[in-house]
């Protein structure tokens, strides 16, 4: 029985959900038509992921009705959702690290032969074909733990697509991706759409939404606000719906670099093929490291921050050579590092917002060995206010925050250290439009006050908007440098590829 074309694949009304009495979703509504790519928009903490998890049977709703092809359904667990043709790419990456890519993709659907024996060869072949069809360039038999965050994201995409589901939920699938990989995903989405499937797409990158989606639904503070066709609205209108007040997407940039270099990197080598990297960072400058996925940008940060082995190369701060063996050394030298993997190396998920915010500044917030609770509270509150972190309290467990708000906690932790040099690896990952502006403002203010920033970003717009200078990386080496005046999207891509 094929559903009528005007019959929605999925229709949700009046979804409600609270966590320990705090409502996360008050009135979730959504209608997904076949052959459509439907954007679910909303600020950080608007309830998007909560809504999608309910659809998938990961959470249980407190109230609401869900119709699948017109039939009322209710999923107790994800396997029922899968059986009903719904698959998901979750916002938080969730690999099984010690298993291969192929095993992760076909987890629960392994081809089996005699005696329940898995046909590994067949599974690897299928997985490889799948990955190759999206040009992801990942080997199906590599271990998940050996992949970078971006590659892990690609595998999760491949996995969700491999279910051949009718409804595919994508919760910020591109937040960890470079543009080339994102384009592969968009091509896949277009194919799905052409085949009459429905895609629910969540992203804070509005340009993406306008280029691949056809309809939109906006949530704000857990409630349904508006739905419609993207063709009928402008970007600014959408932003206004999301943020709740008029706002244009723009970059805040008021710093001017001084000529004196603060940090000089000479002939640096790092793990995984990074070699002979030389560049200067000036006082008051925002420098971008640009490159394709896997070009070695994060490795440079790891090395600068004392997380990987000291090998070749010199690092000078204010003209004096420094040795950095550990993060302690780096912090002492005035560095701060927002890593790209916020779950793996950014947050202590078992602790609350306040402890996470104060984690790198405990020494400053204590009198001798004893913590000054008031100072901790004050510091945390300052960051919550400055970055508009949406949390019920600073004692809430950080794992209960929405993805974007978690990212802000990591940023806040490092801002509190009052560093001289900020290393930001994908700082606006998963952050909504409103908050992005706040982050840009903080960066700009920081640089204006004499601090220096190196940022890695896969969003070319962000690089163009914020960077004073760009160092372009290719295959672990510096491919060239561009001054702000020379910047263009084509120029960057040309050097990087």
């Amino acid at each position, binding site marked *: 029985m094929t559903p009528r074309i005007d019959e929605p694949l999925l229709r949700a009304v009046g979804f409600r*959900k*609270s*966590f*320990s*009495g705090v409502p996360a979703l008050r009135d979730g509504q959504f209608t997904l038509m076949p052959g459509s790519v439907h954007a679910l928009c909303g600020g950080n903490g608007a309830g998007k992921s909560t809504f999608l*998890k309910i659809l998938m049977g*990961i*959470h*249980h709703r407190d109230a609401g009705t869900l119709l699948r092809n017109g039939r009322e359904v209710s999923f107790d667990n994800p396997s029922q959702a899968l059986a009903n043709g719904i698959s998901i790419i979750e916002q938080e990456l969730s690999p099984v690290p010690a298993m291969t890519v192929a095993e992760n993709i076909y987890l629960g659907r392994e081809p089996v032969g005699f005696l329940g024996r898995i046909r590994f060869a067949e599974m690897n072949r299928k997985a490889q074909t799948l990955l190759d069809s999206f040009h992801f360039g990942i080997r199906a038999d590599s271990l998940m733990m050996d992949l970078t965050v971006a590659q892990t994201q690609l595998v999760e995409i491949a996995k969700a697509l491999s279910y051949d589901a009718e409804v595919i939920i994508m919760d910020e699938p591109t937040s960890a991706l470079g543009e080339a990989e994102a384009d592969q995903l968009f091509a896949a989405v277009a194919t799905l759409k052409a085949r009459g499937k429905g895609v629910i797409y969540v992203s804070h990158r509005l340009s993406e939404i306008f280029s691949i989606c056809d309809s939109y639904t906006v949530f704000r503070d857990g409630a349904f606000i508006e739905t419609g066709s993207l063709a009928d609205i402008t970007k600014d209108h959408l932003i206004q719906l999301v943020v709740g007040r008029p706002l244009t997407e723009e970059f805040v940039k008021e710093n001017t670099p001084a000529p004196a270099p603060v940090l000089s990197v000479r002939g640096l080598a790092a793990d995984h093929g990074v070699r002979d990297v030389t560049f200067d960072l000036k006082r008051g400058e925002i420098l971008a490291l640009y490159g394709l996925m896997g070009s070695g940008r994060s490795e440079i940060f790891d090395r600068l*921050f004392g*997380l990987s082995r000291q090998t070749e190369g010199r690092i000078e701060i204010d003209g004096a050579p420094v040795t950095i063996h*550990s*993060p*302690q050394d*780096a*912090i002492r030298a005035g560095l701060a*590092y927002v*890593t790209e993997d916020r779950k*793996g*190396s*950014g*947050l*202590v*998920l*078992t*602790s*609350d917002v*306040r*402890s996470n915010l*104060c*984690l*790198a500044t*405990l*020494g400053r917030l*204590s009198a001798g*060995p*004893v*913590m000054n*609770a008031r100072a901790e509270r004050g510091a945390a509150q300052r960051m919550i206010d400055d970055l508009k972190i949406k949390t019920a309290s600073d*004692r809430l*467990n950080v*794992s*209960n925050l929405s993805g974007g708000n978690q990212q802000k906690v990591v940023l806040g*932790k490092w801002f509190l250290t009052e560093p001289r040099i900020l290393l930001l690896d994908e700082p606006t990952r998963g952050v909504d439009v409103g908050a992005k502006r706040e982050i840009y403002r903080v960066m700009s203010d920081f640089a204006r006050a004499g601090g220096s920033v190196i940022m890695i970003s896969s969003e070319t717009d962000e690089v163009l908007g914020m960077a004073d200078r760009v160092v372009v990386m290719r295959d672990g080496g510096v491919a060239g440098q561009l001054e702000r005046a020379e910047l263009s999207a084509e120029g960057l891509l040309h050097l990087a590829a």
Partner: protein
Amino acid sequence: MDVDNQIKAAVPAGAGTEQPRTLSSRIGPVAQRYGILIALAVLCVVLSLVSDNFLTSRNIINVLRQTSINGILAIGMTFVILTRGIDLSVGSVVAMAGVVSASFATTSAVGFIPGAPYVAAVPLAVGVLTGIALGALSGLAVARFAVPAFVATLGMLSAARGLTLIYSGGRPIPALTDGYRWIGTGDIAGIPVPIILFGLVFALSHFVLTRTRFGRHVYAVGGNPHAAKVSGLPVRRIRFLVYVISGGLAAIAGMILTARTGSALPQAGVAYELDAIAAVVIGGTSLAGGIGRVTGTVIGALLIGVMNNGLDLLGVESYYQQVIKGGLIVAAVMLDRSRRTEE
């Protein structure tokens, strides 16, 4: 107030490291925080109904005194488990600290320390140092040489027991001075010294874990060692220190035990690690690290102590005691709906 918040912070809804999501939603916050306390209360009410003697001040003192040793061990264990470690060697450290300290406090000719007995301060200091040294060895293996805590402390369990037997020749060390025995049998204002020590250790540990920088470090290292490292915490030093703390506290427990029994037995403390870990886990601390609090541990230790005491008071036959104890522990934790394994 502040402390309250701290406690709340330390024990969030779930036990696992991931997706505490669905967890907290189902249960009211009160049961969440006090589940195991409720279990303890239920047990106490039932016992006071069926036994006239249970709620006498004398029996309460008994329970507390009997709990003090396991309680002190479990508090040290809490530090270790919060960093994702485990310390299986506590029972052997109990014996070694007891025997070594006693050898400085015996009036008997068995004492082979010239000049023994010394004034109580000497053997007590020696005992604590012994525990700290053993803990430091385990800590070194774990923190410096990346030996899994289970293996490092299992090795210590065996080695420290052997050393204790060698040191003592397998014989008890009897006839301890009154000064030494005071920490096991003395009292201050009617409250037995072991209970006072238990209280002090609890208060201090609670303070350290909730109010000091080191305490914050312990939670962070257990919650996400990688993030802790990136944030500039001295992860290795913290890992090392928790074993030193556990060793030191095990030594105190060992000396209380020795002072209470009146002679140091090299075979003391066998299998104590299981009860200590049980108290920690029953008290809501996650073996996955980063989540837990020392108040929970004390409640867990009391639950075990009350159970042992109650079943003795009721004169339940020993075979049946074992069955009932096993069932009660599981039931208590099930009643404490707050904790759920990740899934």
